[in-house]
């Protein structure tokens, strides 16, 4: 069935050192910059995403330092503070949270998990990385040339008429990076549809793949609307054509509708891949099939679709009509139900499993706890009565950080540790992994739980100066932020070190179940010697344990 290999078929390229797999095939810079191997592109993304994460993180620490005191002292003028929180917002949202898990873990693992040799369009995959870097450079230019002070939301008429900062350059950067995520999502959808290994039917796909399928649907159906909204802001800003300018009859709310039509599904783009990662980790370390597989897959798709119907809860107090507000409020409650199902099923997966507490599992357990808090505080924001009070306060900031940092970043780090041996062939140090997980958990809670209290007390967000009575909670939050920063620096140190001194990992260090664990680690450039034939469903750990027991019996010769 497989065609005789063509000229550029990597199977013909003999690996210089079989143990290094795809990493060892070619060490030249050109081979990295012109690679079409999804695994190498994943590592390129890993490097650039970490860079932008650090950049956004530094901005966050400056913001937290500024907020230690009621008066402005770190920044001598409010403009610089406004530019800093805009940097934090833009870089974290568009350059870390949205591409995070899909571009790094998704790119690396999707072909491996469905038994394919590569994504459907390898060259488009590389193009997506170059567009991502081009977008990053444009946004960097915007900062160097004067920065942007509109916040990551670019609300009109401030962004179009009253801000004299580099709004157009930043908007162009985001416009470009939007296409990078569209191309990645397009690649994933087509690959999942057409390139699954024989026998890998839809109900045998690991939930990691389902999660990336649902995320790609949202990206493909949502991102273009953000692109056109950014174009309209740029057109309005240059030509004053009045689309958002009430003096000519335009309506500022038109921008908010178009912007939030993408930006709320964008938060599901950020969290759905993490659901996939957590499902993989929880089953691997509880050594049990996922509980309610079809409900979990269905919940992913339900979130993807319902996610597009709820954006109005960002606009309850912005003179949106009450009737539209009621519709969006009901739907916002309904969209919380599938997330609840997922947390319920993860907990049920632990029941009667055999749970071990390695670093990925610590991150996963942390995720379940923090995501539940984040999700449930979302209900306060979807109820119209309380949203009037807590909209645009630190309650909202705490809510979305619980989901983004408590959810997505914990899952990202958990996934990175879980598949590190597969990606690099080396084991990370278990002690440092557990320590960093604990530090991140403690630092995170100390940073963002006080902000819930601050929020309900009424401290508005994006404030450079605040009244004295909020200071103690802000100081606690800044203290937590410093612990969190240390927690994030640790993996940045011990993971690269593990490349040199880490224990060499075999094909399946966690004895986990999945096609990616059947091939070598690091896998060869063409992934599988022979395309595997899939016979059973995912997470068949009973099968795996019986096979391990038989192998032990044979080795020790015990009858």
């Amino acid at each position, binding site marked *: 069935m497989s065609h005789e290999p063509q000229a550029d078929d990597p199977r013909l390229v003999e690996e210089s050192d079989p143990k290094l797999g795809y990493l060892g095939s070619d060490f030249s810079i050109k081979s990295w910059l012109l690679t079409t191997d999804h695994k190498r592109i994943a590592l390129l993304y890993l490097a650039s995403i970490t860079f932008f994460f650090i950049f956004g993180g530094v901005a966050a620490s400056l913001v937290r330092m500024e907020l230690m005191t009621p008066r402005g002292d770190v920044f001598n003028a409010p403009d610089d503070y406004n530019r800093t929180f805009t940097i934090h917002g833009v870089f974290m949202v568009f350059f870390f949270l949205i591409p995070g898990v899909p571009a790094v873990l998704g790119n690396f693992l999707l072909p491996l998990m469905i038994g394919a040799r590569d994504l459907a369009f390898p060259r488009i995959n590389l193009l997506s990385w170059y567009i991502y870097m081009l977008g990053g450079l444009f946004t960097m230019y915007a900062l160097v040339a004067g920065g942007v002070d509109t916040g990551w939301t670019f609300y009109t008429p401030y962004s179009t008429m009253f801000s004299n900062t580099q709004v157009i350059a930043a908007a162009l950067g985001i416009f470009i990076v939007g296409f990078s995520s569209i191309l990645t999502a397009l690649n994933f959808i087509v690959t999942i549809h057409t390139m699954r290994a024989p026998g890998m039917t839809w109900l045998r796909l690991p939930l990691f793949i389902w999660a990336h399928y649902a995320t790609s649907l949202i990206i493909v159906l949502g991102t273009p609307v953000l692109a056109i909204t950014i174009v309209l802001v740029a057109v309005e800003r240059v030509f004053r054509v009045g689309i958002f300018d009430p003096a000519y009859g335009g309506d500022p709310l038109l921008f908010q509708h178009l912007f939030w039509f993408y930006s709320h599904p964008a938060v599901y783009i950020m969290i759905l891949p993490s659901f996939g990662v957590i499902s993989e980790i929880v089953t691997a370390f509880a050594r049990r099939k996922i509980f309610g597989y079809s409900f979990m897959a269905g919940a992913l798709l339900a979130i993807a679709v319902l996610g597009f119907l709820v954006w109005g809860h960002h606009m309850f107090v912005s*003179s949106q009509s009450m009737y539209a507000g009621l519709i969006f409020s009901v739907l916002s*409650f309904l969209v919380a139900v599938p997330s609840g199902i997922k947390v319920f099923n993860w907990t049920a997966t632990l029941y009667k499993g055999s749970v071990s507490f390695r670093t990925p599992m610590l991150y996963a357990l942390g995720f379940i706890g923090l995501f539940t808090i984040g999700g449930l505080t979302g209900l306060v924001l979807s109820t119209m009565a309380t949203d009037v009070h807590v909209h*645009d306060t630190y309650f909202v900031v705490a809510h979305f950080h619980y989901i983004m940092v408590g959810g997505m970043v914990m899952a990202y780090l958990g996934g990175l540790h879980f598949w590190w041996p597969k990606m690099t062939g080396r084991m990370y140090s278990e002690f440092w992994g557990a320590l960093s997980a604990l530090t991140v958990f403690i630092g995170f809670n100390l940073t963002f739980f006080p902000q819930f209290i601050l929020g309900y007390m009424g401290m508005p967000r994006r404030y450079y100066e605040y009244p004295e009575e909020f200071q103690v909670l802000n100081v606690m939050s800044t203290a937590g932020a410093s612990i969190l920063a240390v927690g994030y620096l640790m993996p940045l140190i011990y993971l690269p070190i593990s490349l040199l001194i880490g224990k060499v990992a075999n094909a399946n260090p966690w004895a986990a179940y999945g096609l990616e664990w059947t091939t070598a680690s690091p896998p060869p450039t063409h992934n599988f010697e022979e395309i595997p034939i899939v016979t059973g469903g995912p997470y068949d750990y009973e099968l795996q344990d019986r096979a391990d027991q038989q192998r032990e019996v044979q080795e020790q010769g015990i009858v």
Partner: protein
Amino acid sequence: MWDFPLFPQSASTHAPKVDAVYIGLMIVSAAFTLSFAFFVLYFAVKYRRGSRADRSGIQDSNPIAEAVYITVPTLLGIGLFVWGALVYFELVSPPGDAVDIYVIGKQWMWKAQHPEGSKEINELHVPVGQPVRLVMTSQDVIHSFYIPAFRVKQDVLPGRYTTLWFQPTKVGRYRLFCAEYCGAEHSRMGGWVTVMEPSEYEEWLEGSSEQTGMAVAGEALFRQYHCSGCHGGNSTVKAPPLEGVFGGPVPLLNDPADPNSGVRIIQADERYLRDSILRPKDEVVAGYEPLMPSFEGQIPEEDMLKLVAYIKSIGRGRTTRPTTDRGMQDGEGAPSNITEIMGMGTGNGGDAR
């Protein structure tokens, strides 16, 4: 030691209802969170690897449990939604006898006007027990009128009226914020809402309204003598804006003819206002040319008093309070006009287009 509050004051009829919905939501959330946390930790410890717990009869899926777990949260959600919506209906429906106060949000200050005519900047005086409705609009970007103690917030958009109502129940001074990001001094665009006994409020009203009566007449004269032609909001002539001038420091050129001679700061008081109307060329504000014609002998004395009253009413403080005690520490509330003048039009976007 515990001197910082953990829960906002409850000073309006809305507050207890909104707090009730909030507490209800917190209870539901805590119930779910604690039960999940408990089960996760309990299972994780009970079924840890190597423990001899009974692991027979593993179920991989239990549609009944899933169905229960779908219907219960949905019903709970609908219930909470209905409760929240009912409280929201009260938030948006002012009673018949509500008093209207008109509020303008402008880049980085709130200007309020009472029906009786008295005007305030970054301040709002309301009698306790009287339902008040604010009819608001914005002159430039989207702001948001937010009083945490009353649990009310409403975005203020250019080109549209938005309304918000509350009925204060407790006398006192509560913070007022701008909640929608609106530019450089978004965090300074706030102030105080003072709830007073009705009698005190009437007193305050007279004090400010007679002053405002003259100020209102002064405003008409301001247009009649074409002052607004240059000093008005959207004039093309480069003349110093008069909002917030009175009571604040003003930089004057040492030698009016030579723009880059040194600058001296004086306090803008009634004398300065009269002199700059009658003999504008004697004291020229730094950064501006001496273009203003002299009005010597053209403005009768009582018109001059009304003009000065008007300029004072749009001054930095309010008409009745002595200008120094604005009830705010330095750096809070609206900036003194000094920042705009010292800025010399470095282009904080909101200037006259």
